[in-house]
């Protein structure tokens, strides 16, 4: 359990090697080993979706994976979504801002990762709204998040 192992990852486009106990959760590797604290942990039970990252192109709960399970994986976290240009936001992030789709901001990263993954994989608006169903937000009542998804799909001509 406390045996350590080197795990090779590509995180936000950068090759990383972390040496961690085999039991370390991927979410803890991202947050505490790599300092990518934008990924939040809301339940460690795989339900709330706050810890969602994009793993080899698909959204995944980083609290449900042990680090060695991610050996060789390409992981994208919230820190990479907006790109590097100053002030830049992904269209969904921009819509979340303009339409007040976040309040405390704790669940937000996971929702952004899910919706960005849906957008990239060509999901329809209805599919993206269903994907939002995998997240718990306690502040917003979801109304403005749905509006932000609709706005994004409209902007992107989907």
């Amino acid at each position, binding site marked *: 359990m406390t045996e350590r192992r080197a795990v090779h990852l590509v995180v936000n486009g950068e090759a990383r090697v972390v040496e961690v106990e085999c039991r370390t959760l991927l979410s803890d590797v991202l947050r505490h080993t790599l300092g990518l604290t934008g990924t939040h942990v809301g339940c460690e039970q795989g339900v709330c979706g706050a810890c969602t990252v994009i793993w080899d192109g698909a959204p995944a709960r980083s609290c449900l994976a042990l680090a060695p399970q991610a050996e060789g994986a390409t992981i994208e976290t919230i820190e990479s979504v907006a790109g590097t240009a100053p002030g830049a936001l992904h269209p969904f992030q921009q819509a979340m801002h303009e339409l007040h789709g976040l309040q405390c901001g704790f669940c937000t990263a996971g929702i952004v990762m899910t919706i960005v993954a849906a957008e990239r994989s060509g999901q329809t608006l209805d599919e993206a709204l269903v994907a939002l169903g995998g997240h718990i937000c306690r*502040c917003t009542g979801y109304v403005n998040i749905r509006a932000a998804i609709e706005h994004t799909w409209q902007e992107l001509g989907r």
Partner: protein
Amino acid sequence: MSARYVGRRIPRRNDARLLRGRGHFVDDIELPGMLHAAIVRSPAAHGIVRSFDATAAVDAELVLGPAEIDAATHPVPVLWTIGVQPQTATRVADGRVRYVGQPLGVVVAASRYAAEDAIDQIVVDIDDLPVVADATAALAPGAPLLYPEYGTNVLSAFDSGDTAEHTDAVFAAAHRVLRHRMHLGRIAGISMEGRGIVVAPDPTTDHLTIWSSNQAPHAIRDAVSEVLGLPQHRIRVVAPDVGGAFGLKDHIYDDELMVCLAALRLGRPVKWIEDRSEHMVSTTQARDEHVDVEVAFDEDGRLRGLRIDAQRDTGAQFAIFGGGPLFTMAGLVPGPYRWDAVRTTAKVIASNRTPLGAYRGFGQTQAALIRERTVDLVARALDVDPVELRLANMLEPHELPATTRTHITFDNGDYPACLRRARELTAQFPERPDGDERIRGVGYAFYVQMAGIGPSNTNQLIGLCIGGHETATIRMEPDGSVRVASGISPHGQGQETTFAQLCADRLGIDIDQIALVFNDTDTTPYSAYGTAASRSMPVGGGALHLVADKLAAKIRAIAGELLEAAADDIVLGGGRATVIGTNVSVPIGTVAQRAWQGFSLPAGMEPGLIETAGYDPLSATFSYAAHVCRAAVDPATGEVAIEHYAVVHDCGTIVNPLVVEGQIHGGIAQGLGAALIEEVVYSADGQPLTTTFLDYLAPLSASMPNVTIEHMEIPSPYTPGGMKGMGEGGTNGAMACVVNAVAAALPHVADRIDRTPLSPSYLWELLQSNP
């Protein structure tokens, strides 16, 4: 001064940081040499700790058990004393366990993983005592006592409103009396970020810095000072980004105090982060109330009397505000209607459950549910339209201000217009889908919310030992940019934006010139509440108004000197101070530079531009709303869908409609959740059965309809700026509205509904037994 910013839908200024993953929450804090804590919790619901043996936890840096913790701590004060209340403080560890999950000790190790490993090596021997499963069991003759020294399981008992004699007379004179009972299910607040704390002692200065996920840094500082015996000026409490609080994080918890103690012992920083299962047993919960309601009314539909006997199962001990939520329920239960008598008798009862505390609504949600459900029962009994019945009994604008039978004076507004408009909005509800056989009903609720709680003298009068005021400090720098510090402690409510909107208008400067300072006892003025009780905008914003006007007066005086005009003839706007009716002006930044240089200031004026103002309101403020929604019930499964929802409300001056609407949406989700699906469940032996998000159901996107919102905007006569406060309103209206809609869909069983949540299984059974 024209409003350039107030009233505008300005997206929040702090969003981008959170959207990019650059927030700074408590678990994001890393300090050199930091250790990690885990909490030893009781697996038993009731018992006496015989031994706490940590000898096997060899990898732990420190273990503290109940005896050491008790010896090193003073009791935690309960700040509200109501009626007959034997419990006015609670010990952090007194050798007994009273609920599953109660913290017994703390383990500190090199990592969170190692600390949790060490927990398994600690042997706690508990002698079981008979379990007091709930309030009913607690009141049974011969029930075991959680606190034998009190001689009772009743932690507080009080009456509210009219006398028994007056109420009896009103009931005797009325044509009819109806009775019903309700159990309001226990719910958990479930902020998406649990609690967490980082404690960093500085051995060289004897200062203690605490970062914690909280909503009231000064209150937490005060409690740490009291419990650990440290002077307040050597403790700094910071709330970093906070992932939701909803009342849960308004006080310090025993486990957090244990972490403080451990950090002090070790002289090193220690972090503790609550996990979700801990949250579901150790963070304060809400409701768990049983009410017997009697309503007296006349054949013509006139409401006469309301008599309530209420019991609140407050769990194992009082949190900071004791039985306050039940007291608040009793105070606000009259609502917008004329009554001849309103009386509540109440008991707050200890049982072997997780302690209750503050949660969005703080009793006002229950007040609305009890009253609005009762009004619907009367309407059904008289076979009259529930909206017409409400309108016939509702205070008209000309009757305001009006004092309730519970001695609360509502300020102003137009309640009937609000309700009528909500009824009109149902015309916009979408048509029932073809081929859908679900049964539909439309339900209404109306509430008047006591927001902007204060003044301090009222708190004193009702035994609530905290000040009801707020303070703001404002500092204009020599370049004309402004820093505003306020004691409120936002955590999602958007005051980084809305306070800047208010301030920019008062000073006539650009909003980008204003930065806000919150959430830190070292840099903000004192506030007993932080952000809670829907009072940040009416009371905190009131203080901001006053201080900005003080600063503006000084700017005008200096500008007058510069422009050779009277201060009264100077107006501020567009970043300039201008002689009224002329184009003679000077940039406000130039005035600020002059103020700090101290050159040629008006005679006797202090240099600099710093002002502070305290605002103790004349009265609380009273926002109100009408909620209406349509429920579709599937009789085959008991499942309820809320198809559409509309709100018409008045919270006085609206600083930012985007933020206000967001608060309403979120509040509705929480009220809807409590009405339909959320419930903390215990086994008969006090074991919690809902400790994950798979067992405790929170509303998901599919549960939440879209919401039509219309604003009325009748400014408060009290608050500078006219804001009334509204953060809890959505919750207050939604629970009652949803219950009434379900009842309206099921008229043949409507009067038999006697609990929340209206879960599918509950409704299905109700329908089966009443076909």
